[in-house]
């Protein structure tokens, strides 16, 4: 792996992480992180969408007129999101119901548009794929941290299974953690901690 690739990965996962570096895609971060399983499926959907739309935008970059490029990008993103939505509806109806409108809202997830604009429409398909994939991974790991804390503290479960102590009588479940305010608290704390580590390193 050459140095350039390493830098892309390091940027996407850490230095310029979509959540705590660029602070993009916060809407879904707040909305779907109260259950770990839902978060996981949501993140897989984003990995799929972001990787493939990055490649598609990159392939079409030489033909797409500059003045309508955002329209084309939105169309491509919507295309992949709808595929995910249809697949969930057909093969995992329960999960499709759990996620509700949030799968469709990946279309407006700023990370996807952001990566298409920042990278895919100016570089070759392979680097674009890498950039998209690792940015989605950067989003995924932060969301999973948030979701784990929210579900364990708020419901006493992890992926639906009872966690010892937190599901027991000595733990008064923090219901606020699974409600929208809990998402703001957790996101704030996570961004704070990661940024503090980043700053210290610098």
């Amino acid at each position, binding site marked *: 792996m050459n140095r350039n690739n390493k830098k892309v990965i390091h940027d996407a996962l850490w230095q310029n992480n979509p959540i705590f570096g660029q602070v993009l895609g916060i809407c879904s971060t707040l909305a779907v992180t109260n*259950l770990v399983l839902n978060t996981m499926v949501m993140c897989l959907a984003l990995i799929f969408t972001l990787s493939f739309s990055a490649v598609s935008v990159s392939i079409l970059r030489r033909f797409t007129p500059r003045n309508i490029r955002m*329209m*084309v990008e939105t*169309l491509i993103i919507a295309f992949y999101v709808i*595929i995910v939505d*249809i697949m969930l*509806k057909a093969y995992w109806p329960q999960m499709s119901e759990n996620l*509700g409108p949030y799968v469709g809202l990946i279309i407006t997830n700023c990370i996807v548009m952001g990566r298409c604009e920042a990278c895919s429409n100016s570089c070759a398909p392979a680097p674009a794929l890498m950039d998209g994939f690792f940015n989605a991974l950067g989003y995924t790991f932060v969301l999973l941290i948030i979701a784990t804390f929210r579900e364990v503290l708020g419901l006493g479960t992890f992926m639906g299974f009872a966690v010892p102590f937190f599901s027991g009588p000595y733990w008064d479940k923090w*219901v606020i953690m699974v409600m929208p305010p809990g998402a703001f608290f957790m996101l704030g704390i996570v961004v704070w901690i990661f940024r503090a580590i980043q700053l210290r390193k610098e």
Partner: protein
Amino acid sequence: MTEKKWFPIIYMFIITAVFSFVLIGFTNFTSARVAANQRLAFEKAVLAVLPGLYPEGEKISSLDLHQRFVDKVLPPDETSGGAYTLRDSGKLIAYALPISGRGFWAEIKGVIGISADQKTITAVSFYQQNETPGLGAEIAKPEFRKQFHGKVILFSDKPLAFKRPGEQLDAHSINAVTGATQTCTRLEKIINDALINWQKQVKPEP
């Protein structure tokens, strides 16, 4: 060519057409499955509220479940007030009344099971809801739904009351879900509207 004024229009048109075609293909390919899933979710909910047809936690294939629905459950007739019925050689055992209405985020759809006396609830089940996971969505969990078992609906403008969590209950009320006031208020209205409407239409069994 890419410098021409008309190029962006043609380009957008072609791109849209290509992607749309693929999506239409996808939708067609899965539409039967999606429709079957929805149908099955409904049938499952009906079976779940009728006594003895689909015990909680039973493992059964989708095909068997559908077959059981076809074999046992009778569609609404002129005396059942819009409810599906379960009969044993003609004698009515229970009603399964479909309900639906607006929840907090999206439509809630479910089924209420009512026994042959036309006032005791056998069970309640929801097959479509989009309430907040962990809060409003608790209505679909067994802990909440079990409360309905054996409750007696009244002939009034509020056949079944939702009370605050922890409050003392009688035979005509259940506890709402903590932190899900909106969902519960709307669900209470959905259930009561459906029950009142049903009480007006259902005919006494001979």
